[in-house]
């Protein structure tokens, strides 16, 4: 439910959440980004960081410079303009994935799941290729970044067809690095070996987290994904996987990133 007006909630004395809704919807994510853009245009003194997630904008601030109430007043003054922001800058990032790769298969088996992709195909009444076609056949909107360094959560822009995945009943103790995974319709990513509960789709040869900022795509920061990006997945085979992986390790891989815009009207009927 979209709130009549965003609710401002304290997160201790050094942060606040400006919450636009309690749901995950593209139009609510847009509103969060619209507020972020409006704040950045004239960033109030004392604001240290803006953290957009699906349905709220987190603001970290120094309360010895600006108080919660002063910051709240600034945000209230920006709210009337949010409705009009219906086109946002949005890059398209291409992510090659070796679907149903041997690492995912081994990881699923270790967790008592005989065949991860067969399972997803079965519960969605399709084939393994059907799951891959669905995942590669649409753009995915990044509506949150975080949990771990470089992890993201995306929702499909085109929801005319639906593939969903339940989370593991018992979370895994470990998942290999660079696994792309699915829960509900949310695609996410494990940048390094870590516990997790999402279903495993495949492995990408790309680094999406580079703390040393060695690769040129990371010139502006250690994490590639930004809220408001669109991801496009491309299915690759073992040979292609190994070729790209070698280039990434050498630091010579050219990430495919196109600048662009995303119009809310293209995906959500005007209300």
């Amino acid at each position, binding site marked *: 439910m979209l709130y009549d007006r965003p609710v401002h909630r304290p*997160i*201790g004395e050094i942060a606040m959440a400006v919450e636009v809704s309690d*749901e995950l919807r593209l139009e609510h994510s847009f509103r969060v980004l619209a507020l972020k853009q409006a704040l950045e245009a004239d960033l109030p003194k004392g604001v*240290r*960081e803006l953290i957009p*997630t699906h349905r709220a904008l987190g603001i*970290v601030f120094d309360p010895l410079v600006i108080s919660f109430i002063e910051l709240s007043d600034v945000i209230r003054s920006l709210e009337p303009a949010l409705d009009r922001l219906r086109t946002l800058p949005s890059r398209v990032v291409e992510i090659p994935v070796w679907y149903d790769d041997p690492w995912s298969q081994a990881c699923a088996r270790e967790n008592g799941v005989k065949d991860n992709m067969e399972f997803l195909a079965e519960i969605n009444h399709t084939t393994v290729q059907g799951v891959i076609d669905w995942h590669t056949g649409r753009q995915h909107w990044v509506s949150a970044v975080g*949990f771990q360094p470089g992890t993201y959560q995306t929702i499909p822009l085109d929801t005319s067809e639906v593939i969903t995945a339940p989370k593991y009943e018992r979370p895994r103790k470990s998942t290999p690095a660079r696994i792309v995974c699915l829960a509900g319709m949310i695609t996410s990513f494990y940048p390094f070996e870590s516990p997790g509960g999402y279903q495993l789709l495949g492995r990408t040869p790309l680094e999406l987290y580079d703390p040393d900022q060695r690769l040129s795509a990371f010139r502006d920061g250690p994490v590639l994904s930004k809220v408001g990006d669109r991801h496009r997945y491309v299915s690759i085979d073992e040979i292609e996987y190994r070729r790209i992986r070698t280039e990434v390790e050498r630091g010579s891989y050219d990430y495919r990133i196109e600048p662009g815009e995303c119009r809310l009207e293209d995906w959500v009927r005007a209300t």
Partner: protein
Amino acid sequence: MTPLPSIVVLKSAGQTTIQDLGRTSLVKDGIPPAGAFDALSLKIANKLVGNDPGDWMVIGSRPGAAGLEVLMGGLSFVPTRNAVIAVSGAEADVAVDDAPAEMWKSIQVPAGARVSIGPSRHAARVYVAIDGGINVPPVLGSRATHVRARLGGLGGRALRQGDVVPLEPGDPHDLPDRWLSPDRRPKLSPPWALGVVLGPQDYLFTSASVDTFLATEWKMSHVADRMGCRFLGPPLSFRERPDYLIAQAGSDPSNIVDDMTHFGGIQVPSGLEPIAMGVEFPSIGGYAKIATLISTHVSRLGQIRPGDSVRFVSYSLEAAVAELRACLEPASFEPAVV
């Protein structure tokens, strides 16, 4: 050729890591500050040896000099140059070549002498500052070790026997001996009280459960590390949720559509065992957060040991800001010259 100044680790019984006040403005990328869990104690130790203590975790602009965080004590090392060190935080026996030395006081250590720190008493983390500071390369603006992401510090990991940890050259001028008198040191022993600001999702809990949260004497469980600490006590319950949220956020009554988790946030998965977030917190999560520790008391959380009794005390926003102002006032921990 003169070897670069360093300390050589002879023994590390527990988890010893290189820490400063951590990274800032990277939570949007999923990168928490890391840094000293008891940042106030590290700041004091740095002050005692004449280092930059930095300003503050998360909202600051200076991470200050890097020192050592020693979980539960148990560390010995040798500096390869003359050094001034200070030991703060949890109480422990300190010795330089078998001669006892005091905590919360600057200590002259000649090159080649052995510094040993015994097991900690009453609290969890001992801090060591060395004049000049530790000189590992900063990663993303800080030397802090983020153990889970293998970031910063020495190869992103805890120190081991035989490690050679580079030091800054150190200030050539003679530093007068300094100490912090006992009445001005933080009280680092149980029972503990942790200040919280209620929210961001206290409204999802029943009001009786919010009362229970504040009235209970909780016990810290053994599931406690730099990422977060769990507490044992009564179950908490949630208000009824509309059906669309059950579909969107998940079937557990504590589930919300993921939002930002932050420094000191207290989430309560399934209403059981509240988890207070530490310095390596996951930056988003799908569980309701009943309250958030005031930032200066995250330092205190870093000193609590499993089994200790803890109460959560409600602070108004104004009181929390006043506490922050008092803690960051340099006079509050300016050491005296002996």
